[in-house]
């Protein structure tokens, strides 16, 4: 039996009744129906700014569609435009430093400052995902991704299976992802511990690659009507070209005096473990998210991150119906990698002829011990019946020990940790049709 629908010539009564009904339903209103099988589009733009250093503009567009049979299709495209100056890895020294970039440009840093290399790059990334039920209470998610930069190509694939328990209060998930990255740095890969940033560097390979494998097992449980907890365990292994092709580290004499710089060297594999506990607590209208994450790897890096966010729906207070305000704080503390060095010390880490006495070394401050705070606020509000906008502003502050015990001689007079401050703003909108 089909409903007959006819084009309206004049429908004064239907329209007037609709108006009268909406009056009778009052502030409660009629529920806004959700349309079947529609598309949803999300667009957002991230603006990332490190003080005095890097600027990134990253627009993202994401499309998804729910299909008959509980299937869902998603596509995400990202374009990054990056410019600015990036630390070359060498720490501040007691005298001025000068280097030549692989493209032949000279740059340097005054005494006590961290040398930074100008750069400009772009990145494009495409990710596809597909979700579909494969058995009762069981869903499979498949993903494929590609990312391209001028000197970098990454291809990846992932598969995850999620299964709800019979009570539907618990969900198991297990996933595996694999990606292959190929790096073709300008000027090629250089011999570890060879002289850094000179016009005639020793190239050992034009490009190199690495394989990244990650496994994840998780369980999510509705503990009661207010509390949902997720526990995820991850194990990952990276193998291949782990050394950063553009990073150097300084060499100092026993008195801490700057002698030059050499290319860094990292192990060619890394085994990573993560344990992530996340809680969502519904307090009637508002929601609190609280998470704790532990990370450890066989490079000696371990990190603990705590995160707290409050999803505040202010409608009854200020008439902001449909708005969500989400203040957020994240704290993270990390230990240094075993092979992290502020600089190589002659006679201890490298001999006077330039032969390394250590197997690996890097001065990349991302491998140093540090503490980071992120404070953020996200606002989301309706823009129309099927559209919403959002704005997120975050401030990230990373600090470390500027006077580490390993500093020798003249280094002790320097601030050896480049404090990092980043502002991030994301503006976005979503639309369903």
């Amino acid at each position, binding site marked *: *039996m*089909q*409903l*007959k*629908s*006819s*084009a*309206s*010539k*004049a*429908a004064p*009564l*239907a329209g*007037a*009744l*609709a108006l*009268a*009904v*909406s*009056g*009778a*339903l*009052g502030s*409660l*209103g*009629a*529920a*806004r*129906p*959700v*349309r*079947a*099988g529609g598309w949803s589009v999300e667009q957002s733009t991230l603006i990332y700014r490190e003080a005095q250093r890097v600027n990134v503009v990253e627009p993202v567009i994401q499309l998804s569609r*729910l*299909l*008959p*049979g*509980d*299937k869902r299709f998603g596509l995400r495209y990202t374009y990054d435009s990056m410019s600015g100056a990036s630390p070359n890895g060498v720490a501040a020294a007691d005298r001025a430093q000068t280097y030549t970039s692989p493209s032949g440009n000279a740059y340097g840093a005054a005494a006590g400052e961290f040398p930074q290399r100008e750069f400009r790059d772009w990145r494009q990334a495409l990710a596809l995902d597909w979700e579909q039920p494969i058995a009762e209470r069981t869903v499979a998610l498949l993903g494929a991704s590609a990312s391209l930069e001028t000197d970098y190509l990454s291809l990846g694939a992932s598969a995850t299976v999620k299964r709800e328990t019979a*009570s*539907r*209060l618990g969900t198991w998930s297990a996933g595996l992802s694999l990606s292959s990255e190929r790096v073709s740095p300008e000027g090629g890969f250089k011999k570890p511990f060879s002289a850094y940033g000179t016009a005639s560097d020793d190239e050992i390979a034009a490009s190199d690659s690495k394989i990244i494998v990650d496994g994840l097992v998780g369980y999510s449980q*509705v503990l*009661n*009507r207010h509390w949902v907890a997720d526990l995820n365990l991850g194990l990952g292994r990276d193998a291949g070209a782990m050394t950063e092709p553009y990073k150097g580290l300084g060499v100092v004499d026993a008195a801490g005096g700057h002698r030059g710089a050499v290319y860094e060297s990292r192990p060619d594999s890394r085994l990573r473990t993560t344990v992530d506990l996340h809680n969502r607590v519904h307090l009637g209208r508002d929601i609190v998210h609280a998470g704790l994450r532990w990370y450890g790897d066989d490079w000696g890096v371990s990190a603990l991150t705590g995160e707290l966010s409050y999803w505040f729906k202010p409608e009854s207070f200020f008439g902001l119906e449909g708005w969500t305000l989400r203040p957020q704080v994240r704290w993270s503390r990390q230990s240094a990698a075993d092979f992290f060095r502020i600089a190589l010390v002659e006679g201890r880490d490298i001999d006077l002829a330039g032969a390394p006495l250590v197997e690996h070394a890097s001065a990349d401050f991302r491998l140093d011990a540090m503490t980071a705070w992120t404070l953020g606020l996200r606002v989301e509000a309706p823009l129309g019946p099927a559209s919403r906008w959002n704005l997120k502003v975050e401030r990230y502050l990373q600090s470390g020990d500027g006077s580490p015990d390993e500093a020798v001689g003249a280094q002790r007079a320097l601030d050896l940790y480049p404090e990092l401050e980043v502002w991030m703003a994301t503006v976005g909108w979503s639309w369903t049709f």
Partner: protein
Amino acid sequence: MDAPALQPAGPGWVHRFEAFAGPCELLVEGLPRWAAEDAARLVETEALAVEARWSRYRDDSQVGRINAAAGGAAVVVDEETAAAIELAAQAWRLSNGLFDISSGVLRRAWNFAPGARPPRPEAVEELLPLVGWGKVDWDPAARRIRLPAGMQIDLGGLGKELAVDRAAGRLAAAGLGAHALVNFGGDLFALGPRLDGRPWRVGLDDPAASGRRAAGGLDLASGGLATSGDARRHVLQAGRRLGHVLDPRTGWPVPGAPSSVSVLASTCTQAGLLATLALLQGARAEAWLAEQGVAHEVLRPDPVGN
């Protein structure tokens, strides 16, 4: 209220309960049991609250108090009741008196039981002075209503449809209605499609064989659906079937009325008002619905009349 008794239904849950003298249900998908229980509690609470507020069989209900005070002092009603009465008043005006919540008194003259005979014309004449919203003293601003002696109002049909919309509104506000269908005795509102994106399949009762089998079904992904009419009630006159739908202006059945009209609209309440008014158009029901430009289904009785 204790935890509502939910039953699994496909990738979701169904909660069944009795209200408005009939079966009611909530179908939800994509929610864990505890959230579906919250949804069920919201919907059942809303249904029972509306029923208690507007039941004409309860002396303590708003409608019971209004009817009991007919011919006496004015009654001040609560805000929800005032909104429903004002909607009825506007529907009465817009329909030139065809939709009338005071028409229930006519049932005293008419007996629609199987085999019943039509009343004497005088019996209907006697009741007509007690019917007609125009005789009611209604002040919407002050929420004051006063019925002349002997008159009564009935928010039954309208109340059920308003309850469907209100329950759906509560589900949406609680974020529980992405995939939900509220069904109070055949008056429905779908807040969204099923979890897999397909519409809900709604079975329609065949009025000629009511309760025995579904006449068919229709797909509802979102919006309201209401049905007016009941073919079990009719009166035979000289072997000819008289309609069961009484015109409040004449007190007699509307000639040529369909046995049932189903209408789809953006709210269940609007669908219900349009369905009732279409029924009152009699033989013109289909043409009138076409003029309104709403999706509809009209069923007509077997011409032999049974």
